[in-house]
């Protein structure tokens, strides 16, 4: 009787020590789930999800305040990844938040631009250069295609131009052949 109690106490102490040590040694800094969600989001910072950027949306998802299907630029693939990460069921994109569009960049028509700087203030990634009363240009490489600069422009001089396929960004396509309907169906 006493032996068994002692054994249990002994075990409890050992396990307690092990747990205690591992709690210190393998301590997880911060809440990585938000970072993980954020790394899946496309970082367009477009706000179509209803939050003022990707990080706030990621935080909202982590806190259960937002659904995983509110990000049009991330597309279906993004939703699948989020569903995998969070272990929840996949949902189709919520149409309220918009439709996925081909990746584009904003181009300022420099003839029309009046240099009002409103777009500069709207750009979430500081991809627009220019100062007051001087026409602006967009650093194409940095533009995420979020379209946030479109509404503030008083003279409608910004156009979204879809990125065209060229020899640089061109990709090999998925093989297509006539026969083998079964496996195609399975793959899709």
């Amino acid at each position: 009787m006493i032996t068994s109690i002692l054994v249990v106490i002994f075990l409890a102490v050992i396990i307690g020590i092990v747990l205690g040590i591992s709690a210190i040694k393998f301590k997880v800094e911060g809440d990585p789930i938000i970072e993980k969600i954020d790394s899946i989001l496309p970082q367009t910072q477009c706000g179509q999800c209803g939050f003022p950027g990707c990080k706030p949306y990621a935080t909202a998802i982590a806190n259960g305040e937002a659904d995983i299907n509110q990000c049009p630029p991330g597309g279906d693939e993004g939703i699948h990844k989020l569903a995998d990460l969070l272990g929840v069921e996949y949902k189709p994109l919520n149409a309220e938040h918009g439709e996925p569009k081909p990746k584009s960049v904003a181009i300022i028509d420099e003839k029309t631009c009046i240099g009002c700087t409103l777009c500069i203030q709207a750009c979430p990634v500081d991809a627009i250069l220019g100062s007051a009363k001087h026409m602006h240009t967009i650093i194409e490489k940095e533009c995420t295609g979020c379209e946030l600069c479109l509404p503030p422009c008083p003279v409608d001089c910004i156009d979204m131009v879809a990125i065209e396929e060229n020899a640089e960004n061109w990709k090999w396509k998925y093989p297509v052949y006539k026969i083998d309907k079964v496996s195609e169906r399975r793959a899709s």
Partner: protein
Amino acid sequence: MINLQSPFVQGSTSVSNIMFIVMLALIPGLIIYMYFFGIGILLNIILASITAIIAEYFILKIRKIPTKVFLTDNTALVTAWLLALSIPSIAPWWITVIGTLFAIIIAKHFYGGIGSNIFNPAMIGYAILLISFPAIMTKWQNPSYLYDANIAFSVFMHGIDNYDGIASATPLDYVKTELLQNKNILPILNEPLARLTQMQWVGFGFLLGGIFLLFTKIITWHLPVIYLLTLFTISSLFHLIDPSQFAPFQFHLLNGGTMLAAFFIITDPVSGPTTPKGKIFFAFLIALLVYLIRVFGGYPEGIAFAVIFANICVPLIDNLTQPKVFGHD
């Protein structure tokens, strides 16, 4: 190809001619079979082939898959032949039909058709028949009962009830039953029923066909060599430990479906492993199980169950035996 890419040249092997060569390789065994046991086996093969083709055609139609290409890939025929060769030649026609239908429809197409079946279809067909009709499936033709084509046809249509003495136990079955009566194995092995040389000649035919397959590089050495080697080693080992209880290796290598299995059944690529090490392990596992089932299990022959069990392990085997990539440590 709609989006044409390299390579623009291609070798000449195709699934249909691989399967055709496999069928060619079965012919020596088949001829010896017919020489000793009459045309019963041929009737079974023809019926199984027809059934397989018809079943394949309808199921392809139902699955809305182009029929021509898949009917001519010869895989259904190989399944039918292997199943027919495993079934006793004196089984009535409906046994063959049920077995073939099961193999093609359930074991092959329910799992996704060619390339997707995780079990060897012929062995699934065989196992179902063995479980459902044990009385028919465990009776083998008595080789001393030489019969003509008329009898063969009658047996094929109506079963063996009209012919006394046509069927007897297989050597594996006979030895197993005798051993159950606590007898010493040595005198049993000398009984005529345990020494079915005609069956052994058929096995030799399959061995010849198998060597042809190795020679034409249709199969690699791993599976048959390791399978036969393992069976040889295990049976020799047990025989050494207790010669009065365990038959020597030649008994296990020459009887039952050992040769057919070594070169034609366990070498089915779809349900087998793909890596060289995996093949070695797979063949070892099957040989081990075959011996265990034959000697310690409830059935006289264990190839079908051993193969089906090993099929289950294939994804794991493949996963654990991934070979080293060029230059990797």
